[in-house]
């Protein structure tokens, strides 16, 4: 079953007089539980694609079906609901709220979703244990290392048990070793059934994925699922 079904996606940015075609005539299908790496040169449209998949951005044309539901026509509130329940984000620069502790950052999506604090606490506790952050629960982001921050971010992305995790260069700000740790965490999540889409510049990391997409100038240049041979 296809989790994601993109058909004829266009994304055009208007910059003054000039128009930038960030995505052109993009067709893509990603099945449930897949592990996909998106690669390609800078400016090829990888982040734009990921933002579209995460409903942070709307395509200029084309249709996007998520779990057999056309999500481009949803109202902003319905889209927020989908982001809350079905999608988890992991960013290159972590995007933690600086004034909140690790535990509070992890709990944030549940708080926004209106989950009672009792349940939040027990789920956060489990997540802290799962990601080896028990000792860091009350630390704020500036008191954490990069690897710890990204682990907090991944814990936050998974706390709502989403079907899809989108990671935009999750290891871009980390050294090799901590980067590998983070990748292993993401892969473990994928192994448990969560669909994983990772944007990366790192060929070694890309090679670990079961499926590689290579983008160029806003379109798919290569898809290992349809690779010749």
């Amino acid at each position: 079953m296809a989790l994601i079904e993109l058909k004829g996606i266009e994304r055009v940015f208007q910059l003054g007089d000039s128009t930038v075609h960030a995505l052109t005539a993009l067709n893509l299908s990603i099945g449930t539980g897949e592990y996909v790496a998106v690669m390609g040169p800078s400016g090829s449209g990888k982040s734009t694609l990921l933002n579209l998949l995460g409903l942070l951005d709307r395509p200029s044309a084309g249709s996007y079906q998520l779990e057999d539901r056309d999500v481009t026509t949803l109202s902003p509130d319905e889209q927020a609901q989908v982001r809350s329940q079905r999608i988890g984000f992991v960013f290159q620069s972590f995007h933690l709220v600086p004034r909140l502790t690790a535990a509070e950052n992890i709990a944030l999506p549940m708080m926004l979703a209106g989950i009672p604090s009792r349940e939040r606490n027990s789920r956060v506790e489990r997540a802290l244990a799962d990601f080896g952050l028990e000792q860091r629960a009350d630390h704020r982001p500036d008191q954490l290392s990069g690897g710890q921050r990204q682990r907090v971010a991944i814990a936050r992305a998974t706390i709502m048990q989403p079907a899809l995790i989108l990671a935009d260069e999750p290891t871009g700000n980390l050294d090799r070793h901590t980067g590998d740790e983070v990748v292993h965490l993401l892969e473990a999540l994928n192994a448990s059934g969560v669909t994983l889409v990772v944007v990366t510049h790192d060929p070694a990391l890309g090679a670990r994925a079961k499926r590689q997409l290579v983008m160029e100038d806003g379109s798919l240049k290569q898809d290992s699922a349809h690779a010749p041979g």
Partner: protein
Amino acid sequence: MRLADTLRFARDAATSYPMRTTLSVLAMSIGVAAVVILTALGDGARRYVVSQFSSLGTNLVIVLPGRSGTGGFNPANAITSTPRDLSIDDAASLLRAPAVKRLAPLAVGTSEISFGGRLREVMVAGSTSDFIPLRNFELAQGQGLPEEDWNRGSSVAVIGAKIREEMFGNGPAVGQLIRVGDRRLRVVGVLKSLGQGLGMNTDELVIVPVALAQAMFNSNTLFRILVEAKSREAIPEAKEQVMNILKQRHRGEEDVTVITQDAVLATFDKLLGALTLGVAGIAAISLAVAGILVMNVMLVAVTQRTGEIGLLKALGATARTIRLAFLAEAAMLSTVGALVGYLLGQLGAFALRQAFPVFPAYPPDWAVIAGLGTALGTGLLFGVMPARRATRLDPVQALMRH
């Protein structure tokens, strides 16, 4: 998001930008404190004047010789040139009026008082036995003027507290013979000290029978007739009756002016009430300015936290959730500001009362309610706009600015 979570989130957000938060709370509290203190001042002035006027006596109707300027030009007056004087008999005739409870004619002048070689100038009030109770004066020693024929003044005097002190020191006053002008008078009573009020200072007053005063000043006119009506409701009636009797006695000429204390009071009350309102208006403007400051602070907050707003959206926050969070923050800033301002204002009013004990500088309830209401209202109102702006941000654009 749950309400408790929204409030906690807003509180944490406010406290994590202490400078910004302090500034807007300060602005708001200065505005509210200004309302409280200024209206306390205005209303204090009003109450002070009202209480001073009330202390003149209760249900007073005052008769003055001469037509008041508001009557227009009267050719009869123009020919007689000087209005007919008020006489003791005029005053006595007013006792006939059914709405009049009691009255006191009043003749005034200055003279010299001497006792045992000490000498000073004094204000002399000539009146009758009812003068002291009618003006709510109280006696410290002795008694008031005797009940007697108003046209036969016996040689007695009631003196003010300060006169007693200056003339007699620690010695006894009642029963002593003093000289006032060219008369020898026996002191029969001493007034209680009242301090300086509106009207005459009773501490430096000598009260003698009205006929005696007229003889001393070689005149047979009165300065005023003080009339006390039977009740507050009877004041207009008493005024009418007094006017009619005097008109009759003065051959149909309305050559006196009758004023009621109520009218004077009402005028002052209105005037000072308007003053308080005006002052409150100025303070309200400062509140509105504070509200605009809160708005700017919140707009800066929205700009500063653009990335955070984008993140919240990415994590599934609806527009409503974000709007509420920013609104709650604005509401908190203005609530804390309003409360701090209220306390500061009450403290200021308290300090005023300590510094000027005679001045009842209490902020009126309406001003406090309006002040707090305006603070919260403007805070919320001006919080809405930044909150709306926050929700309109495009999640990707917002995130990119993180």
